[in-house]
């Protein structure tokens, strides 16, 4: 029984971080149909902000908020500088642009900070365990679950109740119609990038607090995770991203328990093979959103 509870808890904790990753990626994908390869670097930016500020007197909460804001700002900046000029070009041009932005940010970190990983001070209470009816629960899992729950709830409120959220959802369904109704494309897209940055920042904080250090290539794993999650979950809806994230989190924990050690190394290859199979045989993913293929410019 303990084992089962532990498994569920780990899966929920990992799955919620993965969901946040996927949501951040799909915010932009939903509107521009762009897989933002520079998404992982937003997480890296948040991590380095944390690293730079950790010596100061600011409390952790403030540091995290600043890191999230910096990630959001970077996201908006990349949109303004790199993506806006190519937006009216083909999807290939946008994909390659995002690849270039990713290389640019990654190598900037390499030049400005260091190619080596830098440790961040994860607060000690993260490592404590609390005992709940005989089950050991680590504080970090609790923090992850609480923060993700708050973020998901906040995002839900934003998307369902505010004008911005309704605009964003409408934009993902039919952007041209939205433009005809007089909504400015630039504003909608900038908000999507900002929200994507905020999600990357929050998820990045949770991710980096698990790892304990930040390096220029730290964004790679989250990018791949988000990519898999949105493909498997469904690329046409936000709920698809959440489902995909939790599915992948559970699958990862399960494979870790079940696969023999020598097969574990090939885990990622297996998971990516699943991605290709899903793309070929069920391109809409687990959650079938309203179908929208139209791109905007």
């Amino acid at each position, binding site marked *: 029984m303990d084992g089962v509870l532990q498994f569920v808890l780990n899966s929920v904790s990992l799955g919620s971080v993965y969901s946040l990753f996927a949501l951040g990626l799909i915010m932009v994908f939903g509107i521009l*149909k*762009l*897989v933002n390869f520079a998404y992982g670097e937003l997480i890296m930016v948040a991590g380095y902000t944390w690293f730079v500020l950790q010596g100061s007197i600011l409390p952790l909460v403030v540091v995290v908020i600043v890191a999230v804001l910096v990630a959001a700002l970077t996201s908006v900046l990349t949109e303004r*500088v*790199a993506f806006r*000029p*190519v937006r*009216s*070009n*083909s*999807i*290939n*041009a946008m*994909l*390659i*642009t995002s*690849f*270039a*932005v990713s*290389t*640019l940010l*990654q*190598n*900037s970190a*390499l*030049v*400005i900070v*260091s*190619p080596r990983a830098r440790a961040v001070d994860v607060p000690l209470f993260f490592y404590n365990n609390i005992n709940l009816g005989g089950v050991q629960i680590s504080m970090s899992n609790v923090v992850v679950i609480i923060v993700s729950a708050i973020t998901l709830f906040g995002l839900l409120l934003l998307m369902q109740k505010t004008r911005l959220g309704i605009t964003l959802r409408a934009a993902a369904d039919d952007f041209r119609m939205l433009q005809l109704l007089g909504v400015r494309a630039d504003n909608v897209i900038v908000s999507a990038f900002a929200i994507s940055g905020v999600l990357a920042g929050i998820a990045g904080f949770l991710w980096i607090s698990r790892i304990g250090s930040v390096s220029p290539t730290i964004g*790679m794993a989250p990018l*791949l995770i988000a*990519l898999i999650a949105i*493909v498997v979950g469904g*690329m046409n809806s936000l709920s698809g991203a959440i489902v995909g994230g939790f599915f992948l989190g559970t699958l990862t924990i399960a494979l870790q328990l079940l696969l023999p050690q020598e097969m574990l*190394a*090939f885990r*990622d*290859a297996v998971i*990516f*093979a699943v*991605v*290709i199979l899903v*793309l*070929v045989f069920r*391109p809409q993913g687990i959650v079938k959103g309203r179908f929208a293929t139209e*791109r905007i*410019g």
Partner: protein
Amino acid sequence: MKMPSIAAAGRKLVPLIGMIVVFGVLALITSFLGIPLLDRIVTVMFIMLIMVLGLQMFMGNSGLLSFAHVGFMGIGAYASAVFSIPVAAKAMALPDLYPALAGIEMGFLPAMMSGALIAAIFAAIVGYPLMRLSDTASAIASFALLVIVHVVLSQWSAVTNGPRTLFGLLKYTDLWTAVTWAIMILVVAFLFKESSLGMKLRASRDNVHAASAIGINVVKVRWLAFTISAFICGMSGALWAHFITSFQPGSFYMTQTFIVLTMLIVGGPRTVTGTAIGVLLVTIASEGLRAMENSFSLSGVLPFGTVGMTEILLAIVLIFMLALRPGGLIQTFELGAKRRNRAVVATSSDSELTREV
């Protein structure tokens, strides 16, 4: 189909012959000067030219973005290495190699061809379902394929020595091997573009529905092109492996993909001359920058490390290029093709990286 007149065919060959002359002269000068560093740079450039031409044959003609081709280069490199490393050295370099493979020792050419063939067979098997996809889905799938190839190359210790460096290769590739193959592939890429397969492919790029309506099996032509281009990328990998002689799976991943894509996009993916010029320019730029990077880091003028500066500047160039001239330097018509030819085809021009309306 009407046969083009000899004169028209001749005009089409002008850019090809021009490129061959340029590269031949470049190779002659390099071997005449005999500077080892220059020799190395030019040789690697020709190998990259083969790689990028391989990618161009698929990407430029079909209009599908592929991240996977650097993976095929990796497969070609590793497969040819397994065949060509001398038996004695193999026992050291790959102690866990399967007995069936451990006894094989081939010359360079058969090893290279086997490596390329393995890359092509792999591409043919995994490629067929992927060719049904388009736009984003196809890009994501090819990206996933690159990751899969990378994971397998860096984990299949028995054959690839895992993430560690594979050594023990003999240095078969020199400047002239690379030049000869590069020129041959240049011709192949040209012929491919003008062949019936290439034309069908380009038709499917410009309008996939119209192409299938006139009876082109889009999936099949894409698949054939994918397989052929994987063969050529595998070949470039084999040439590269036998030039560098020790390498690791990390050489065939994101950084390499970025450089290859930069070369292709800067030059112009739709034209063979554009591709060749892109390779030339990006090599000059990145080697120049790298030299500056090294002198900066030696002199210590700058307060920060300089490794990575080259990539930063290349990325900036790429972003500008995509914003200002998304079709590359040489967009639709081969460099040197006659104006009169251009006027005839100009109506159907629609750059692949510019969006169709």
